[in-house]
């Protein structure tokens, strides 16, 4: 099943995976995955729990290296590069469990996200006064994700939904070219999901989005294309409509109770 043709086909891919595999002992968590994303793509990865989606994210982000295959980001082979280099190239990600900094305020969390991809934070005595523009950016990102009233709150006191919002605010503050979100809707209320869909739909059109999502509403509304994974492999790719109509997908996923974590 072909991925829909697009005008940007000629451009350099944002992300190109070739034969990516990752083993944990005898387990092939990811197995022979090929994937290409072009600027502005909105792609969702679907798949039951244990399909290897998060592992694939970890490999792309540089959390650990793949056991097979190569990863290209923005045209450069980054297979052996550390995670922080990939962040500096323009990759931002969120985690399945919103990984935020509990001992800091909301503003400091987003500020750290904006600061990391820049230089100068390894000099202990550099004044924070010079960072007024970054602070402004952090506050703006907090506003974008609906946390403007919570700027000075400690993150340890946030609700689950607010932590999710914060995680996305942090990813946005990095101003990435490729944004990878791991189940951003998990555990959100219906109203919070609507906000999330609006938030994701409002991303600048040149930002490439790779999404892992169980929630079909979010997954199929935000995405232009869908990749279905099962037991570490990609089994189907297509448009949301094609995926909805696909028999295998139904058997594996939509008909089952997999989306309840």
């Amino acid at each position, binding site marked *: 099943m072909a991925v829909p043709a697009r005008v940007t086909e000629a451009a350099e891919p944002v992300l190109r995976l070739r034969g990516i595999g990752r083993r944990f002992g005898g387990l092939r968590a990811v197995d022979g995955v090929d994937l290409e994303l072009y600027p502005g793509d909105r792609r969702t990865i679907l798949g039951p729990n244990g399909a290897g989606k998060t592992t694939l994210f970890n490999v792309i982000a540089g959390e650990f290296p793949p056991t097979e295959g190569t990863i290209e980001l923005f045209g450069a082979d980054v297979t052996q590069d550390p995670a922080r280099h990939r962040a500096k190239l323009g990759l931002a990600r969120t985690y399945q469990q919103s990984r935020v900094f509990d001992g800091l305020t909301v503003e400091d*969390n987003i500020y750290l996200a904006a600061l990391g991809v820049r230089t100068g934070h390894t000099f202990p005595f550099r004044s924070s006064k010079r960072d007024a523009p970054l602070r402004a950016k952090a506050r703006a990102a907090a506003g974008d994700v609906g946390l403007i009233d919570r700027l000075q709150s400690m993150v340890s006191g946030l609700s689950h939904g607010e932590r999710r919002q914060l995680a996305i605010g942090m990813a946005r503050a990095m101003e990435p070219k490729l944004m990878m979100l791991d189940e951003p809707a998990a555990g959100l209320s219906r109203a919070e999901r609507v906000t999330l869909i609006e938030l994701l739909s409002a991303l600048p059109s040149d930002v490439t989005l790779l999404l892992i999502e169980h929630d079909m509403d979010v997954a199929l509304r935000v995405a232009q294309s869908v990749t279905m994974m099962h037991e570490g492999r990609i089994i189907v790719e297509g448009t949301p409509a094609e995926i909805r109509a696909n028999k295998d997908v139904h058997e594996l996923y939509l008909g089952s109770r997999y989306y309840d974590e």
Partner: protein
Amino acid sequence: MSATVTRGRAGLRTGMTWPVLIGWGVLVAVAVVLLLAPQIFSAYDLSQILTQALWLGIAAVSVTFLYRYGGMVSLAQVAIYGIAGFAMGNVVHTINSEGGLNLGWTPWAGVAFGIAVAVIVALLFGAIASRSYGIYFLMITLALSLLVFYFFGQVTKLSGFGGIRSISRPGFIGDPITDPKPLYYTALGASVLVYVLLRYVVRTPFGIALQGIRDDPPRMRSLGYNVPLHRTLAFALGAFVASIAGILSVWFNTQISPGSINLAQTIAVLIIAVIGGLSRLEGAWLGALAYALIDYYARQHTPTLGLWLNPGRFATIIGLVFLLIVLLSPDGLIGIGHRLRDLAGRRLGTPPTSDTAAAREEQALPETAGVSTASGPSSSGGQEP
């Protein structure tokens, strides 16, 4: 929820709540007592309790800083101040050439050299230890502490177990035994400078990033930070602070030997940081004062009670008092202080400060205790992948 924040901020901005006033009152009183201490206390008390507490506090605050803001439990701080002390002791003039190289440098050149050596060793060592977390980091720093102890014990050219004696001091300090005032004010000034420096650093981009690393190192990596480098630099900053304590301790004791930096001293400095309270930097000096006081009185006044207690067992008393403090308040003396302040504030008719930004900061202790907690991503493994 936003109401909480607004109330907290308003309380801080107007600065008129009782707990805030009590806080300022305590600060002013402490400042006055510290400045007038030489007029208030006997020369012996000034030296043995206050000067001792000030330099021990500087050593302990390097532990507090690394833990509170970096999530690192370091047992190497005493070894590091030992390195500074031995390095200085070797290069400066020692009267009658009692141990060490006795290169005859001026005292101030010795200070610069001692601090530089300690910081350089910390950078090298930090580069090794910075990929370890929790109990593994603690064990590596313990190894450094033992290594330094035996190094100076066995390399007799540099020290030997007898140590280096009669190390010369800058002229203005004079002889602390006959006139303890100059050294007292020096230690006080150094403490204030160290405190201000650390308070400043933790709000710089570096300091905030360090707190991010404390909370979740892999997350910081994926935000673009060089986590091992950052931790190494924080460790070196902790070493810089500890080395100041090392210099002061040599001036205080006029000598240094491996016995001054043995395991007991390593543990003593850790205890000082803990009983003071790890949630705030001030806790280090509070803990050091308590330590100096208890040490002083227990040695003098431990009664004889049958077979099991006599003046020779003053250490038992010290241990019991520390146990009591930690049991009464998990956040040490700082925690007791906060509770007293809030209690007094409530009596005087204003709500406690528990909603203010400052109070929230006080409560935000790192989860990566290293020794006791096994949860959280940062304490889950010894080495980064």
